[in-house]
């Protein structure tokens, strides 16, 4: 049965694993359930397989073992309804379209009616007002990423996949976005998955943080973040916040240490 397009999607992985055709093992069997409407951060060393996991969940990369269900159906079902959006690690804006054109392209691809007002609101939300008509080539790296985030959000997806969305964004804007973006996806109960290298960002944005070891990625820690919302920048100095950040950092270090001593895992 196809999932109802208005109900957010729960993501269930069972023994999900990925080894590429060339023999590169990227993901060790992973079993995890991401409840609908929640925000989950994926943290792990560079090259461990986070983007690959996200691409599998988006239905762009077939898993090599295990099962993956979104809202009770295989990822393709959600894909076919254009119920998910992904902001890719490289912003992937089409150079011949303006910022507005790129955002509108998502609506077109998802076969949704044009929504000029919503597009304007999003452009303002990501701080690109005044650049709606600009070509990507004339924008900075951080501005391009923000345009890509707006593009991912414009279709009001049930599942939002963000791959290092703030990688090239400056610290101040990054904090602003971390405050503003959840306000748009929380009321809609969008299930959000976020890959990030910033521990602060992970704690700030998510309800839950999954920490991975170096490749092949194994889940080393599953940390619940029960800080009250809405979260403001001031929260970053709160002892509870700092404690969680410390916990994530320790888990990352543990994962790296474990990978450097492969005999210890056996």
């Amino acid at each position, binding site marked *: 049965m196809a999932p109802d397009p208005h109900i957010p999607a729960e993501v269930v992985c069972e023994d999900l694993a990925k080894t590429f055709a060339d023999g590169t093992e990227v993901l060790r069997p992973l079993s995890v359930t991401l409840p609908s409407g929640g925000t989950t951060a994926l943290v792990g060393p560079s090259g461990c397989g986070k983007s690959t996991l996200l*691409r599998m969940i*988006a*239905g*762009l990369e077939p898993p090599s073992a295990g099962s993956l269900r979104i809202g009770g159906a295989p990822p393709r079902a959600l*894909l*076919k*309804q*254009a119920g*998910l*959006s*992904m902001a*890719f690690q*490289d912003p*992937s804006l*089409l*150079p*011949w379209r303006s910022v507005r054109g790129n955002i509108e*392209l*998502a609506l*077109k*691809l*998802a076969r949704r009616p044009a929504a000029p007002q919503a597009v304007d609101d999003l452009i303002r939300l990501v701080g690109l007002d005044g650049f709606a008509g600009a*070509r990507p*080539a004339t924008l900075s790296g951080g501005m391009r990423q923000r345009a890509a985030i707006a593009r991912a959000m414009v*279709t009001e997806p049930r599942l939002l996949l963000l791959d290092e969305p703030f990688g090239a964004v400056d610290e101040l804007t990054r904090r602003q976005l971390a405050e503003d973006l959840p306000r748009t996806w929380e009321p809609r109960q969008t299930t959000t998955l976020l890959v990030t290298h910033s521990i602060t960002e992970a704690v700030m944005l998510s309800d839950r943080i999954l920490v991975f070891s170096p490749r092949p990625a194994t889940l080393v820690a599953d940390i619940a973040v029960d800080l009250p919302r809405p979260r403001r920048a001031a929260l970053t100095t709160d002892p509870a916040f700092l404690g969680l950040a410390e916990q994530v950092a320790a888990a990352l270090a543990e994962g790296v240490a474990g990978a450097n001593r492969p005999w210890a895992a056996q």
Partner: protein
Amino acid sequence: MTAAATAHRPGRHTARRWQAAAGLLLLLLGWEYAGRALSGAFILAAPSEVLAWTWQNAGLMGRAMGETLGNAVLGFVYGNAAAVLLASVALLWPRTEALIGGLALLVFCLPLVATGPILRVLMGPGDGPQIALAALAVYYTTLVPLLVGLRAAPSSWFDLVRSYGRGRGAELVHVRAMAALPYLFAGLQIAAPAAILGAMVGEFTGAERGLGVLTIRAMRALDVPATWALASVSAAVAILAYAGVGWLGRRLSTAPPPVLLAPPAVAGRRGGGALVQGLGVAVLALLLWWGAMEAFGLNRFFAKRPGDVWAALVTAPDAAVTRATLAVALRETAAYVLPGYLAGLAMGLGLAVALVLLPALAAVAMPVAVALRSVPIVTTAPLFVMLLGRGAVGTVVLVAVMVFFPTFVACAQGLSRAPGQANDLFDSYAAGRLSRLIHLRLPAMLPAFFAAARMSVPAAVLAVTVVEWLATGRGMGSLMAMSASLSDYDMLWSTVVVVSVLSAACYLAVGGVERRVLAVYAPEQGAR
């Protein structure tokens, strides 16, 4: 990158224009001076004489140009439509790409000088052969960049389309078509003058009207001003067509393509794959050839089948004589075409490098070279014959010039295409021109050089056969002309087969060297 940078500096842009104008003016003055000095030698007409002749014969010239342009436009449309169609098939069924590419190359290597008379007997009088030759002259230079352009988008753009549940159709509309546009225009721009060339070669081979017909008449009558006027007018029309398509391309697409003409895709990097592929292309070519002749029920006397050519070359009683005749002609042609080809490559490369070290000279010489590059040199072959005589020198020089211009322009553009960031790196070490040339620009230029070297192979063959046929009376071109006038269709078809297969083989050999060199110096260009 450089284009964008200069566009933002209007002052520099106007300066370039003035320098270009100065270069053209110098060229004209030199020509006028030489023309006056040599008047009476029956080799060179000064620009003033050319203008006078054109003015007096404006009506005749206008009608001929209308005829030639009409055929060129039709050929341009048919040829490019075929290129788009073939590229689409290769895109939809990637397995067919190698087959389509191989077959297209073989057809591209058909020697127009022999194909013209054959098409003439097959299609009868009228415009058919001119249009067909124009189409044959253009489709390959569009097909090759288009095949690259349709795949040129980064994979994440396709992920974007697929992440909304859309398939190949949406990919084509939203990503591939737009990403291929600059490549398409790069091809169309080269095709525009090539269509005029094809139409004129078609007219050389026995039409009733057109610039090519007037050219042949003027040359036979030793009418120097007319020959020069006709060559100048066709060159000017070709330059205009080239510039016009370029302008349109810049209006419609945002950036020039990174690689103009990528190396040929040989699916099987291992020898076995290439062999199977070559066999497949050969079988398909023979089937299509045979099928076309049978389907139209064409007379065996002039519409030879593969079996007839096999018989003429192998089993017939006089096969040994035929082979010997071909071998002699081939040797004569090789003696002209090889030195000309190599000299053209060396001069193009050498001048491009020299101009990097002398930027002031480059500003004057480049626009002239870009303009002349778009001239279908073959249509000016009669001039070379007048200037340099009917001997070896004229032929070798014509081939060299034919190869020189595209090579020079490609190398010069390649040399200036060094990535901006890398340039910044060299700036940060205050590196000099020479070290920048050796470490940065030469490697960045290699892909362009080899693309030019490869595409010049059939061009050189065309040039040499045209001169041999028009003037020297030696070599393959002359053999083709003689066989055509003697209705020796066995020999004519044999020359077509031998020359196409040999040029395709040379083209692939250059492509092989190219891939090896690029694998070392520019690995990103080889990645597909």
